């Protein structure tokens, strides 16, 4: 089979393009190298939907961000992912920073960002965000800024795309691409794929994929950002809090999540290893100190997780969205912040490029843009809950006590289109293991359910794909092997 379009990369960018293309009568597939989608940059992301004032006017990312922000309202209605416009503050701690805020506001308003205001009334500021430091002298308030759960958005996009006929291939790492007679042949370890057009949304690996076709005109540097996540109900913020931005990043923010947690981070550290998502002592200290400048009484003891993500930073510092010199090959690379905000605008842009390449875009008759909202135990009233359990007893068996997740939600996550097939896949889709016990209680039960639903032996259930086994074997097997003089591996 020859696909009309093959998308490389199952992050938010790739999945959004897939979902946008699923509207048309096209044969499309998506290749992802990891066992789950949303497993790279998308997974460890602040989840902030920016208002759009922050990027410089010389960059296309500023305009795609402003446009993308607006597109979220409709998308959240269609795709039912967690999204909320809670507004953000850029916090000035010194009088001389106010001028900068005024400048941002003026330019932002000119470029069509609604509601931007500089607030200097300390009382009003503290009323809006009581946790904020007393040192504050003024803030830039952006009411259209918000929060989205980046991985839940990506799962929603993929589910909706799959519902509308897009094929997803996970554990398919692209190793080679050939281009002959206007047909691309992509080789993966799992077999070959042929297509007329390729969209390269390979994130940190986009430059490498581009070079497979000899297109060596940009490079992607990984830039690490570390985070600390705090337990729910320890302290709650009303607003996303940014410091005054620096040249390299928007700085270390203190930010609520849509699930009631709070995080601080990220810092920005240029590295060379594209897989190095390790956290460091110095880095964790840096972000905690940074966060404390805005919220002085962060309860460091109530952290439940630290993690790091990598930004795909292009040497141009702007999004690279190009119809390249190789006919039919589109690069969508260097999607760093505000890439999540811009994602819907980026996908639209890619469709325009495909149109330029002569791809016929006929809307499917049966296209359905609605991805039904995943049913959640927590959203039910007591009465509804009772009814649900009568209908399906799996609603009545609680697997994760920290987040109150019943067996049914896990089963649903596994059997959803492009569903979970690893422990982390389950965790990111419906949250068992996200809470304060971090899977201490629920992990054996999640493994049991995955094993049963996927019909796989217990020991083959992994954390997040190949080489991430959780268990190594049955207890007595190992002993018996060693006694017989077998290799102790």
């Amino acid at each position: 089979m020859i696909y009309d379009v093959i998308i490389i990369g199952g992050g938010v960018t790739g999945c959004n393009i897939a979902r946008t293309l699923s509207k048309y009568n096209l044969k499309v597939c998506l290749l992802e190298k990891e066992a789950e989608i949303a497993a790279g940059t998308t997974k460890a992301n602040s989840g902030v939907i920016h208002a759009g004032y922050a990027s410089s006017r010389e960059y296309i990312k500023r305009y795609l961000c402003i446009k993308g922000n607006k597109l979220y309202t409709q998308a959240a209605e269609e795709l039912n992912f967690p999204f909320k416009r809670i507004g953000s503050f850029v916090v000035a701690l010194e009088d001389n920073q106010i001028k900068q805020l005024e400048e941002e506001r003026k330019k932002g308003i000119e470029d069509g960002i609604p509601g931007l205001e500089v607030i200097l009334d300390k009382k009003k500021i503290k009323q809006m965000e009581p946790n904020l430091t007393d040192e504050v002298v003024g803030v830039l308030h952006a009411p259209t800024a918000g929060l989205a759960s980046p991985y839940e958005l990506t799962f929603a996009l993929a589910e909706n795309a799959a519902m509308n006929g897009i094929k997803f291939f996970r554990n398919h790492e692209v190793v080679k691409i050939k281009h002959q007679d206007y047909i691309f042949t992509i080789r993966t370890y799992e077999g070959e794929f042929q297509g007329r057009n390729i969209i390269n949304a390979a994130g940190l690996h986009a430059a490498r994929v581009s070079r497979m076709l000899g297109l060596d005109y940009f490079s992607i540097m990984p830039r690490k950002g570390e985070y600390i996540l705090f337990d729910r109900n320890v302290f709650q913020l009303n607003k996303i809090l940014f410091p005054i931005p620096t040249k390299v990043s928007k700085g270390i923010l203190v930010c609520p999540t849509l699930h009631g947690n709070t995080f601080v981070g990220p810092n920005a550290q240029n590295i060379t290893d594209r897989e190095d998502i390790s956290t460091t002592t110095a880095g964790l200290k840096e972000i905690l100190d940074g966060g404390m400048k805005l919220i002085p009484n962060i309860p460091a003891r109530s952290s439940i997780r630290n993690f790091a993500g990598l930004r795909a930073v292009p040497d141009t510092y702007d999004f690279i969205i190009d119809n390249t010199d190789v006919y039919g090959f589109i690069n969508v690379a260097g999607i760093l912040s505000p890439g999540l905000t811009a994602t819907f605008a980026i996908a639209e842009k890619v469709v325009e490029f495909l149109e330029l390449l002569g791809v016929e875009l006929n809307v499917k008759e049966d296209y359905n843009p609605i991805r039904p909202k995943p049913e959640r135990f927590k959203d039910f009233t007591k009465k509804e809950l009772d009814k649900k359990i009568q209908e399906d007893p799996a609603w009545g068996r609680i697997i994760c006590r920290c987040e109150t997740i019943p067996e049914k939600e896990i089963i649903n996550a596994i059997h959803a289109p492009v569903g979970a097939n690893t422990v982390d896949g389950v965790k990111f889709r419906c949250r068992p293991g996200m809470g304060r016990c971090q899977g201490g209680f629920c992990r054996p039960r999640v493994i049991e359910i995955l094993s049963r639903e996927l019909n796989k032996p217990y020991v083959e259930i992994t954390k997040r794909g190949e080489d991430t086994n959780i268990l190594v074997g049955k207890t007595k097997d190992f002993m018996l092997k060693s006694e017989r003089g077998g290799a102790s591996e």
Partner: protein
Amino acid sequence: MKQYSVDVAVIGGGSAGLAAAIVVKKAELNVLIIERDKELGGITLQCIHNGFGLHEFKEELTGPEYVQRFINQAKELEIPAKLDTMVIEFTPDKTIYAVNKEEGLIEIKTKAIILAMGCREKTRGAINIPGFRPAGIYTAGQAQRFVNIEGYLPGRTFVILGSGDIGMIMARRLTWEGCQVKAVVEIQPYVSGLIRNEVQCLEDYGIPLITSYTITKIHGKERLKGVTISKVDRNFDRVIGSDKFIECDTLLLSVGLIPENELTREAGAEISQMGGPVVDNNLETKIDGIFACGNVLQVHDLVDLVTAEAKRAGLNAIEYIKERYSKKIGKKDQIKCIPGENVNYIKPDLINRADLSKNIIFTFRVKRPDRRLLIQLKDEKNKIVYKRKRRYVIPSEMIEIKLNLSEQQIDPESNTLEVEVIPRPEVLIEDD
């Protein structure tokens, strides 16, 4: 929605919940146990090592043997238990909402509730170890469940962070399974679990205990490949140049336990600094008629002590129903217990002034080990109402004192009672 009405509901069917329920049932009150697992017994079921029952039965049993005695007794007494049932909420008016597969949502109206939900383990996040986040990192209790209950091994070569009891017991258990335990790493300069476990689980098997060290980096992108350990100074800061790499495929964390009080907090009962609810000398929380016992109140060293505490909670719940429930007598005037010098916390947090003539059991832990000491209780005006010598104290051993405060002639007007563990004055004189 199914509705039930009982005198006493016990949340949690582990060692604490069983003992409390048995006491209540023996007083011929209507009691119900609610247990989230498929069977009664709680975490003691996975503690298949011995050392249980020395206080309670004057004999040495394994965990499952110990708890089975209570399960059998509960069966004989025909105590009803709802298994595989998760409490999702309880309210200050003592109504419990729970779910299970068979009945759906259940509403249970009660006169008194005994909280016996136990505790959970601290995780990597709580201690913020930097590095990668590969597969192969578990809490010691989780590994214990995999090995002892499910029959699977989580790895082959282990490093254990923290010398808590479960960690040391797992070091021995895994050695028996043919695994290699390379080291138990402890940030404190002393072992944090019981000395008997250090001897029986580590020394007897030649497993090194490395004190004043901690893990400063996790290696391995997919599965764990090893850890870097570093020496720490007195302030727990890393000593530069002391890093050592240990190759291993699994890291177990035994870095402490936290009482499991999310529901308690949501119900509005005050929670103390250490994670357990604030209780008075009757083990009653700030909400009338809701009692707490076992590890949900404070983390105990031995299950025997949990049993003893749970029995007291049961008796107090009976007394509450008989004396105060119908008359709607609320809490009265209370004295506050304050942890003083080298005392980490103390239970109870409050003493009812009306109960001053009763025997009161105080339990507390010290912050750091020390020798040749004096345990003192002082009232608000710094008058010493009680003192006792003690040869040594360590944080891993809970200290228990049984006292009748009126016999000790506490000032009846005093609003506080402070407990302190101080060096014995004569030692100071000798040293001088």
